[in-house]
């Protein structure tokens, strides 16, 4: 039996909910690692620099780009959630707001990615 259609299932709200969950979990696990690697400044400058140097390699450079992408999506979709919960105007325009999140995402990534990739792949 296929589930009955609802206002929610399969529409923007559902996909944005999934994006919000997935990015939230990814950022959380990254944060556990990130606090631990930063803690190496209390071990010695060499220990910290050695680990951070591996973050400057192409593989990690791409992972960092993915994390920045996840944070941008989670942050602006978070603002959309807050708006939709608090204003009937936003609720009425929630579909447009979901697309606005993606527009902001593309604009910010366009500003960030080229510069970041130059830092990572530009050699230095």
């Amino acid at each position, binding site marked *: 039996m296929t589930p009955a259609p609802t206002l929610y299932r399969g529409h923007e709200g559902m996909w944005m909910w999934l994006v919000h969950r997935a990015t939230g979990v990814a950022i959380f696990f990254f944060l556990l690692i990130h606090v631990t690697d930063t803690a190496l400044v*209390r071990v010695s400058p060499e220990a910290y620099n050695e680990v951070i140097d591996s973050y400057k390699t192409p593989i990690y450079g791409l992972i960092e780009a993915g994390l920045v992408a996840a944070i941008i999506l989670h*942050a602006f979709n978070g*603002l959309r959630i807050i708006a939709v919960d608090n204003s009937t105007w936003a609720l009425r325009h929630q579909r447009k707001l979901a697309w606005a999140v993606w527009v902001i995402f593309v604009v910010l990534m366009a500003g960030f990615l080229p510069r970041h990739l130059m*830092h990572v792949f530009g050699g230095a």
Partner: protein
Amino acid sequence: MTAPELSTPRERIRSGRMRRNAERWSWLFMRFSGALLLVLIFTHLFVNLMTGDGVQQIDFAFVAGKWASPLWKVWDLLMLVLAMIHGGNGMRLLINDYAHRPRVRTFLLWLLGIAVVVVIVLGSLVIFTFDPCPLDASGDLLSGVPDFCKDVR
């Protein structure tokens, strides 16, 4: 268009404890901390990844330079505490949604609680006890310290 239909929601999980307004506070906290985190994190990412040489500039001396200013210490501390509580509370919602067996849920919630406390304590200790100019056993500056250490000594 046919009228949308909502099927019967799942039975509410009862904790059996008296925390009448706990979920309301959780809901409010997620929104206030989220808005604040947006400002804290985007500034953090911009300063560390966009200014200067981006990731390439990050090393011990870079961190020491930032934490020479109390502003960045407070900034990073606030970001650490808010992000861990916000993220930890978010993970709690996921555990409540997906871990149906009571013992598994209890175990995961404890694991999460311990992880959140350990990371907040570790991160705070690092910020509060940071030494920008550490010495080796014979009393010389270790290599990799920022240039200002030579002037201070």
